[in-house]
């Protein structure tokens, strides 16, 4: 609170007279920023208190939960390798679902991205309408798409792929289009000037130069997709998530521990690989 006392409050004459530091602190921060920060935190604190009072959390549930942790933890610690074949099969299925989704979505998205990018779209208004549709598709959480797909196709990895295609392509189309808008202007202008058709501009002019940046986007999305497929299994779309959900609901914590470790290692490895791919692409 010492910062409140502003430097101007002490006339220079006073300082000159005494000749020694007054012991008060000199204000360092920018006043408007500080005010803004205080306002932000005050508003946030009020909001927080209102929300906490709204939540009714029972203390009993909390203590009961806490007391059951040691029991569960000790079961988790007795990690068993009995389920290893099942789990590796599940993990592989999850990765494959992610892979197939990305492959199908890439094909779809490359076609659609050129319809949407502002600088190359053949029909302006159609591009704009499609943009809004994609925004809505992206807003619905991935898990809900899969839930819908499962409801229409039944359980299994195919429902997973179908459900994932929507958010994945929507994301890819948006990123691809942004890339086209960012780097395509000069090529488009040059090729238009010499009278190239739309197809020629897209396939001969833009695509060759955009392949590497697209690949970087795809590798990033694949990384997200693997994490996503693990979750999706938990709502019935095949893969390792189904197993994890089963282990949790039947209290088989020893198998669950192995499952979590396998998931962790796989996602970590995918992240490392995709990071390396991207840094290699960036160096080219």
């Amino acid at each position, binding site marked *: 609170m010492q910062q409140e006392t502003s430097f101007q409050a002490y006339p220079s004459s006073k300082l000159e007279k005494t000749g020694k530091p007054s012991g008060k602190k000199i204000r*360092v*921060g920018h006043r408007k*920023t500080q005010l*803004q*920060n205080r306002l*932000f935190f005050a508003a946030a604190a009020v*909001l*927080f208190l209102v*929300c*906490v009072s*709204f*939540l*009714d*959390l*029972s203390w009993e*549930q*909390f203590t*009961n*939960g806490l007391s059951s*942790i040691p029991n*569960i933890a000790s079961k988790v610690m007795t990690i068993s390798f009995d389920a290893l074949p099942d789990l590796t099969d599940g993990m*592989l*299925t999850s990765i*494959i679902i992610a*892979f*197939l989704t990305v*492959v199908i979505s890439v094909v779809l998205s490359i076609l659609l991205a050129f319809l949407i990018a502002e600088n190359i779209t053949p029909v302006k208004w159609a591009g704009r309408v499609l943009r809004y549709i994609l*925004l809505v598709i992206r*807003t*619905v*959480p991935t*898990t*809900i798409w899969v*839930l*819908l*797909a499962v*409801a*229409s*196709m039944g359980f299994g*990895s*195919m*429902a997973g*792929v*179908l459900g994932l295609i929507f958010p994945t392509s929507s994301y890819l189309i948006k990123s691809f289009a942004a890339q086209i808008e960012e780097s395509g202007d000069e090529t488009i202008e040059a090729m238009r000037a010499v009278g190239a058709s739309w197809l020629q501009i897209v396939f001969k002019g833009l695509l*060759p130069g955009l392949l590497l940046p697209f690949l970087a986007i795809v590798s990033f999305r694949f990384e997200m997709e693997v*994490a*996503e497929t*693990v*979750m999706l299994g*938990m*709502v019935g779309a095949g893969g390792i*998530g189904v197993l994890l*959900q089963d282990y*949790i609901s039947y*209290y088989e914590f020893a198998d669950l521990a192995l499952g*979590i470790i396998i*998931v*962790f290692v796989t*996602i*970590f490895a995918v992240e490392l690989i995709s990071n390396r791919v991207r840094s290699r692409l960036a160096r080219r």
Partner: protein
Amino acid sequence: MYNETASPVFRRQKKAKRAISLALLAAAVVFSVWYVKFDPVEFLSGIPIFITFIFADFLPPNLTNLKSYTGPVLDTLVFAVVGTFISSALGLVTAFLMARNTSPHPAVRIILRGIVSFVRNVPFLVWASLLVVIFGVGTMPGLFALLVFGTCFLARVYAESIEELDKDATEALEASGASHVQIIKHAIIPQFMPAYFSWTLFMFEINIRSSAILGLVGAGGIGSNLKQSMDLFQYGRASMIIVILIVLILAVEFLTQKIRERIL
């Protein structure tokens, strides 16, 4: 296009490389299709079924009894607010202990990094459903799942932004004999504020989405209503919930965007 001047050997190598990678990709696709018994015909015929399902069974949303949705929507918002708050506080402490330039000891840093990366790399629903087993069905496991995941996510991004900060201010203060705490207070925190606001607002957006899907594993929020109505085949109700979700998420994104513009 650019290879016109390159030697033909180089060109041939490049072509061969491309052919090999395409072949590998094709092989991977074939293997995948075989491994998960993916039937392209069934898949393709599934798409129209899916679309008719959405348009015939799902839409239009059931507009009756709108009042029954306000409770879950408020729950979801409250979840996200409380989750963001506590996890931003916890994440801040963890981040300062974890970032290279503010960490008190390298051992602390390495241990925290390990824990954070472990929690972050196991998907969020797994933690949520594990917490449901521990604390029982209800709002508590959902909130804790948001907390655990949010703290680890924020700790990582905060720590990264702290490490990226300019060293000049820190060095200047160090040279004038400031203590560790003073350096953090006067050199690091003011510089770190914009990143803090921006990541915290982003976390709030993520939390809104996550608290919507938490209900699918029985952890409260609007997701549990969605799951319930899907299980009971009340698709009109389910689609109404999804519409509400879309509006909610878009509104929150718009709001955080506005706050960002004001603050940064």
